[in-house]
């Protein structure tokens, strides 16, 4: 599932950028008002870097959509057949997970005093890193573009798709991003991490509480 990063235990001093860097793994999200840099490595997952243009604060997440086509109820499928115009309707089950990944990050920024209407986005990832991830990367890219359009959040920069993983460095305070394409992959750590994360998404938990 998606959870906030424990920044204290997942940060290091980055000599090259002369900043404290907070590491994000799949499912993580982090927002800050300070000088920190947020770093993550993406295969077919997506990272959205949100910037609050008035307060000069921001944050980043790292997520992907679950494969849940067959988990849809029949009743829902009928409605979706009639509404093919948007991704939200085509696979609303996956869209609800994507929505939550975004909402968790947006809520962190709102808690820091930010406003939804001041947000802009930079999006990265969604690569077809392995043969099996071709659809996954593309699905994630399509979803996030539609989500941001629907939420009226402007995309100011993007580096998505392709066949390589990426390392993304984001400094929220100045809305600056540095992306490094990873051309030589020596092992399948990135893929394994993302697959493990995706599996946790479809585990059903008890999430209804009568008070």
């Amino acid at each position: 599932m998606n959870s906030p990063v424990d920044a204290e235990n997942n940060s290091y001093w980055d000599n090259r950028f002369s900043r404290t860097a907070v590491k994000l793994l799949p499912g993580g999200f982090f927002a800050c008002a300070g000088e920190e840099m947020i770093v993550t490595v993406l295969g077919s997952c997506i990272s959205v870097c949100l910037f609050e243009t008035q307060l000069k604060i921001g944050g980043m997440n790292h997520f992907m959509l679950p494969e849940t086509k067959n988990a849809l109820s029949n009743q829902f499928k009928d409605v979706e057949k009639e509404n093919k115009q948007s991704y939200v309707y085509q696979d609303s089950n996956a869209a609800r997970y994507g929505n939550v990944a975004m909402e968790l990050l947006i809520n962190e920024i709102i808690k820091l005093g930010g406003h939804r209407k001041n947000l802009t986005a930079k999006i990265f990832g969604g690569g077809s890193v392995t043969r099996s991830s071709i659809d996954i990367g593309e699905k994630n890219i399509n979803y996030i573009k539609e989500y941001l359009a629907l939420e009226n959040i402007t995309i100011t920069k993007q580096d998505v798709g392709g066949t390589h993983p990426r390392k993304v460095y984001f400094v929220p305070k100045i809305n600056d991003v540095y992306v490094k394409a990873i051309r030589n992959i020596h092992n399948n750590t990135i893929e394994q991490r993302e697959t493990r994360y995706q599996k946790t998404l479809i585990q059903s938990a008890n999430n209804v509480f009568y008070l």
Partner: protein
Amino acid sequence: MAKTILFVDDSASMRQILKMAISAAGYEVTTADDGKQGLAKAEEQRYNLIISDVNMPNMNGIEMLKAIKAGRTNKFTPVVMLTTEAGDEMKQQGKAAGAKVWVVKPFKPDQLLVVIKKLIG
């Protein structure tokens, strides 16, 4: 007559997703973008059920709920909180404010429909 539900959430995509899910089951859904707008709509008209997010700009869901319970129009309308907040402390705040059910996102439409049926039929 169709039963009426007021849904309050600051996310446009979430409003769209939920509206689709519960309209399909025959409920009449009205939406509001934040707590302030939700409260204004709850003061105008009586609903059979209110479903609300917690973290929203202008007025959050808990504050809105308290204001609704303090008013007349929807004082006795059952309220479901639908949120990413999963902590017990938040749930207790919701309970104290008068919420009946706490649903943690992501939810399945069927789960939510079971809750709605239980509360208002």
